[in-house]
């Protein structure tokens, strides 16, 4: 790949590819399962998250297979309901929330700060095991026959009428919340208290700004879902009746409790994706990021405004029309910083030296998909069109474009961008690029037809549907299988690169942020001394001294 670019503050002893790195420093399962090394915890998170992603993905393929024909002939309605509930719960709680912060974030954050580890390593391991403990509940529910409440657990269905092990799933989600809180807490303290000498807030890579904003939301929003699930568990066991209309409670109040967490959590999922894209768009077009403070500021403002707008999920739920108008107006407030981010990324490409490699393909693919996702959100924020589009396949397509296209494509970009650093191996570029095109086409073929089915009025969570929507659903099913195939091929060539891949050079992409300054793969304590940060994270050598 690229010749070794001279690094002004490279430390000679870091240049070698040491025999002893964090992967082979200690051997044996126990050394991995009880490790305090943030890199190993990051890798363990990544492996677990991708496994659950496969489980969630297979459920999704089952759902898409069922919807190929209008009649509900593949599964019974009850099984279908359990499948989409578990698809939703696994994807949200087990995959998307920890996807980038816990796996890539854990690996990359201390390295970017030039530190040996996060602030509280034991707490970091504890949050991994709390995540596994919570996930065990969801896996047990999956084996035991699943639950049919929908991942939103709306009462009174979830408290009185649902079948399946509802309380188990709720306890699992309750425990998973603490893993998310503790990771957020760890990252905030690390970024505040442990930065490399000379690394001011404005010299931090934008990935850290995104992780900082994400952690703030994790710490402030997750406790509210904890208390919501806590109350719902007692609602189901003791019938305390706060959310149950037959006892005098108010089901719309549950929706306020639920969405107060669940809307900010979509920003926990997508902000780290913005962080990754800000990194890759700048590194791979060899140009300083456009509008550093604008992007950093918009991350934090998305986190702040994200707490004010949960009610746009409830325009038609019986919420008062006045309150709906307030939420609708504030929702546009969060669209502005997101637009600023996208404009800045595109402006970064201007007059750059854009590499046509896999990481850049996925980055540009992300921008295409996230633009569609973001722009279709405007239909749902405007009250008149939301009346028609709420709870239809338009919403399904919107949040898959934003979450699946946003967070997942960014996770793939991040995995490919930091793969050399994590594994010391290079993946095959040509196969990577071909798989990108397969995934990109499969993805769009899956979800774009759903927009059309949605505007024409096909409701979501339907086991069987009227024949008018058949052509769009069939296109979507075909697309989903293509996309699934692309993901399996990707898994294949990445694992192949682990064993047969070319040995990665010290800094394959010529990036200048601190994490590229350590060995590849990094030694157990990251840096021999304490690296000093003398210049910004995007001051590449190709940038000509000029204006």
């Amino acid at each position, binding site marked *: 790949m*690229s*010749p070794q670019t001279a690094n002004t503050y490279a430390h000679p002893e870091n240049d070698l590819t040491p025999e002893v790195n964090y992967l082979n420093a200690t051997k044996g399962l126990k050394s991995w399962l009880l490790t305090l090394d943030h890199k190993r915890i990051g890798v363990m998170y990544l492996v677990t998250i991708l496994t659950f992603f496969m489980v969630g993905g297979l459920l999704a393929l089952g759902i898409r297979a069922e919807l190929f024909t209008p009649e*509900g002939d593949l599964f019974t*309605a*009850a099984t279908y*309901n359990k499948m989409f509930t578990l698809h939703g719960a696994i994807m949200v709680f087990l995959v998307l929330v920890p996807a980038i912060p816990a796996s890539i974030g854990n690996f990359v954050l201390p390295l970017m700060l030039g530190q040996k580890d996060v602030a509280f390593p034991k707490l970091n391991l504890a949050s991994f095991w709390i995540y596994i403990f919570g996930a065990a509940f969801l896996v047990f529910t999956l084996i035991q026959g699943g639950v*049919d409440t929908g991942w939103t657990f*709306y009462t*009174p*269905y979830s408290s009185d*009428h649902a079948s399946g092990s509802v309380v188990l799933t709720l306890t699992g989600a309750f425990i998973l919340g603490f893993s998310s809180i503790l990771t957020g807490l760890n990252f905030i303290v690390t970024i505040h208290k442990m930065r490399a000498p000379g690394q001011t807030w404005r010299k931090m890579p934008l990935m850290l700004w995104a992780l900082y904003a994400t952690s703030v939301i994790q710490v402030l929003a997750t406790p509210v879902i904890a208390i919501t699930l806590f109350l719902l568990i007692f609602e189901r066991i003791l019938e305390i009746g706060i959310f149950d*209309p*037959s006892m005098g409670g*108010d*089901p*719309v109040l549950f929706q306020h409790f639920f969405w107060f967490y669940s809307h900010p959590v979509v920003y926990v999922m997508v902000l780290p994706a913005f962080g990754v894209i800000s990194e890759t768009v700048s590194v791979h*077009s*060899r140009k300083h990021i*456009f*509008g*550093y403070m604008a992007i950093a500021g918009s991350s934090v403002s998305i986190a702040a405004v994200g707490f004010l707008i949960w009610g746009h999920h409830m325009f*038609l*739920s*019986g919420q008062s029309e006045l309150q709906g108008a307030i939420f*609708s*107006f504030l929702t*546009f407030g969060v669209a*502005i910083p997101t637009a600023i981010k996208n*404009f*800045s990324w*595109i*402006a970064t*490409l201007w007059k*750059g*030296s*854009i590499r046509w490699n896999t990481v850049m393909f996925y980055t540009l693919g992300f921008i295409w998909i996230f*633009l569609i996702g973001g*722009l279709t959100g*405007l*239909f749902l*924020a*405007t*009250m*008149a*069109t939301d*009346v*028609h589009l*709420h*709870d239809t396949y338009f919403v399904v397509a919107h949040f898959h474009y934003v979450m699946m296209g946003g967070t997942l494509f960014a996770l793939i970009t991040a995995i490919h961008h930091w793969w050399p650093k994590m594994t010391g191996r290079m993946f095959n570029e040509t196969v990577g690029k071909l798989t990108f095109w397969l995934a990109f086409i499969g993805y769009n073929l899956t979800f774009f037809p759903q927009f059309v089915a949605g*505007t*024409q*009025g096909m*409701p*979501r*969570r339907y*086991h*069987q549907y009227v024949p008018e929507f058949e052509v769009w659903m069939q296109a979507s099913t075909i697309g989903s299988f293509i996309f699934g195939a692309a993901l399996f091929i990707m898994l294949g060539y990445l694992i192949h690169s682990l064993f047969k891949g070319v040995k990665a050079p010290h800094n394959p992409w010529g990036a200048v942020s601190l994490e590229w300054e350590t060995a590849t793969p990094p030694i157990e304590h990251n840096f021999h001394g304490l690296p000093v940060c003398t210049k910004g994270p995007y001051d590449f050598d*190709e*940038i*000509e001294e000029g204006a």
Partner: protein
Amino acid sequence: MIPSLLLPLLGLGEAAAGQGKTFWMPPQASTLAPDVDKVFYFIYWVDIAFFVLMMGAVIFFAFKYKQKKEGEKTSSNKGSHSLELVWAVVPLILSVVMFVTGFRVYVESVIPPADSYDVRVVAQKWSWAFEYPSEGIEASELVVPADTNVRLTMSSKDVLHSFFVPDFRVKKDVVPGRYTVVWFNAPEPGEHHIFCTEYCGDGHSVMLNTVKVLPQDEYDAWLASQQAVAEAEGDLTGVALGESLFTKKACVGCHSIDGTKLVGPPMNGLSGRTEELADGTTIVADDDYIRESILAPTTKVVAGYAPSMPPFEGQLSETEINALIDYIKSLD
């Protein structure tokens, strides 16, 4: 197929067949629909403009500034406050415009005109029931006069449902323990789908119904026929009353009378039959069993069936229960 797909894709095929049916939106069958479609297509064109502008730039830059050789020089541009100001203010203005247009149409869609014709909607797990209070009729389908404001006051017997008529661009959640209101005015006669769009369990996707919009005279005729049935029903007794109740209370939806297995067990030859229950015990289906299964169905569930029958406790008078039992016993 591609051109015919692409052209409407851009929403140009406005005047397609069917009153106002475009590629994206279903037919405009209510006075509200054209306004909602105007807001939809306004946002649609703003989105298309932004998308083409931004993706065009991305693709253009990707080709124009493709890396020729490693280490080639790149611009030292780090940002420009004026450009950032522009692309912050322009989306802000557009957002405000979208909010205002959307809110105005929303208010129009939410406040029913005072002189509306009242229909009461009762949603329960997996069927809709409609009551026409001014005429005192109950019916299992929604029939409304054309070109009149109709106000639906809805409530649910068990869980959250949502009343959605795509062709009218009308949707509202139906919340147990409260009334929610939806109104529409369908100028032209016709039939339109009703969907339930709030997840409510196994039968969520079969909880369908249709709105029949009739011209005024046909509507009056339908009302008269319904009233006649209601009066006749008044003096109906025994098996005849049981039979009409069997359809009106939507038992026919889940229980067949010709032996086919539906959501619930078939009714023909039920009385006297030994039934194997889910918990393994077997019982003989006598009057008490039928009565108990009507009022509190989940106490004894036949093996192989889901315990999803809603209870009719307190919804049927004594005579109605007896009539139903007589009717079921008459089916062998």
